[in-house]
């Protein structure tokens, strides 16, 4: 059991700055995120896209913003639990007991949800029959590529993941690559490589096609693909791999007894507390009159939620407001020299 003053769910910009604020006022915290990397939407959706509305930063990319926030919390050695999704939040006395899908548990008086629009999950095939073969012969990520050796693999998608795996698996497997249009959005060098392999007969390329149905009970047998002109082809396959990127799902948060409206959590604007005492929501996932889904709003919300956490984490102490420019205590926490 990990005991902490506050647990932050979500390692996006808001979660990171909230951690900074908690540590600055002398509380400890840990961060859980379902992604395998720090940065949330900034790193998953727009790592290279420029952002122009971070105060005092005329222009930076999602990746740069994330790196700067990571640098800002470096003095604090905050513990991250990546690739873990919080599944359960339960009240026990004055604390919340939080469990992740990996079995990690936390005991904390404060839970701060900085979860964006929820956790990132792979986008799935629209064909319903794929569900029963999921994680068996219908896959959305690859953990062990050796299982494909000597097999027929049909890959769907037009981005880097689809193309990279098509090239890689074509070495030891029969590969079909299916994409809904002729243009691929992956790196040009990989696109060229795929066309080259297709020319040599190492990859069977089906553009302007999409999955229409699959056959197989315990094991995939074949996949039907269809184009816009309703022409159908049947591809015998041992595996279907879908690489359509990630989508955000509210997921288990919906079961924690919080007031949720249109996938956002209602909070007050003093503490950013939800209808459950000691559970806060900040950033894109919270809603209140006038809410703006901007990164700068998330920073403000996190700063206030952090102060609210103080009361529950240190019930016998009084929080005293201090500036970073003048407080020796804060400077000690940051590890910087005073004047």
């Amino acid at each position, binding site marked *: 059991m990990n005991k902490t003053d506050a647990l932050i769910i979500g390692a996006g910009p808001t979660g990171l700055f909230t951690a900074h604020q908690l540590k600055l006022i002398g509380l400890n915290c840990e961060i859980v995120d379902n992604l395998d990397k720090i940065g949330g939407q900034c790193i998953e959706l*727009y790592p290279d896209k420029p952002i122009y509305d971070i105060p005092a930063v005329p222009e930076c990319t999602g990746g740069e913003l994330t790196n700067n926030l990571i640098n800002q919390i470096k003095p604090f050695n905050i513990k991250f639990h990546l690739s873990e999704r919080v599944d359960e939040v339960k009240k026990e006395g004055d604390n919340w007991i939080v469990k992740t899908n990996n079995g990690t548990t936390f005991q904390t008086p404060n839970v701060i949800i900085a979860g964006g629009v929820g956790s990132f999950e792979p986008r*799935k095939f*629209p064909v319903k029959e794929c569900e029963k073969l999921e994680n068996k012969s219908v896959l959305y990520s690859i953990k062990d590529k050796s299982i494909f050796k000597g097999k027929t693999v049909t890959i769907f998608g037009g*981005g880097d993941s689809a193309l990279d795996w098509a090239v890689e698996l074509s070495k030891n497997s029969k590969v079909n690559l299916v994409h809904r249009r002729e243009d691929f959005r992956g790196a040009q060098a990989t696109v060229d490589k795929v066309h080259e392999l297709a020319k040599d007969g190492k990859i069977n390329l089906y553009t302007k096609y999409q999955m229409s149905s699959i056959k197989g009970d315990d094991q995939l047998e074949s996949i039907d693909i269809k184009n816009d002109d309703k022409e159908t082809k049947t591809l015998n396959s041992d595996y279907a791999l879908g690489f359509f990127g990630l989508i955000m799902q509210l997921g288990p948060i919906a079961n924690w007894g919080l007031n949720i409206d249109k*996938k956002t959590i209602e909070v007050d604007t003093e503490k950013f507390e939800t209808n459950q005492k000691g559970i806060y929501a900040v950033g894109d996932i919270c809603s209140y009159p006038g809410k703006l889904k901007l990164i700068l709003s998330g920073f403000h919300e996190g700063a206030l939620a952090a102060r609210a956490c103080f009361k529950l984490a240190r019930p016998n102490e009084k929080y005293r407001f201090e500036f970073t420019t003048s407080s020796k205590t804060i400077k000690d926490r940051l590890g910087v020299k005073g004047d």
Partner: protein
Amino acid sequence: MFSHTCPIFLHNYIIIMAKITYVTHDNQVHTVEVQNGLTVMEGAVQNDIPGIDADCGGGMACATCHVYVKDDWFDKVTPKEDGEEDMLDMAFEPKKNSRLSCQIIISDELDGLTVNIPSKQS
């Protein structure tokens, strides 16, 4: 000039509205008036029309405001910018007439536009 649109007079400003029809996958028809300059996505969200999630809030970063534009309207709506087709790759059951509704900006010319909402956004 306003023959196809419905002006609303409010505090001395004229707000031009266009009628937009959203048809859900189970054939429920919702016709609403949306202010010119907003997007088809915003029109759906503001009027609580089911089936448009718009997770990223209009940043062309999530493909959860996917709609099908009726053939006779397809050439009239604001054309696709770089990146929209890439996002549509990730949409649920994309077709030839697929668009992201956050990228269609409402104007006089679109008064009467009909879009169909797919059965799911993800």
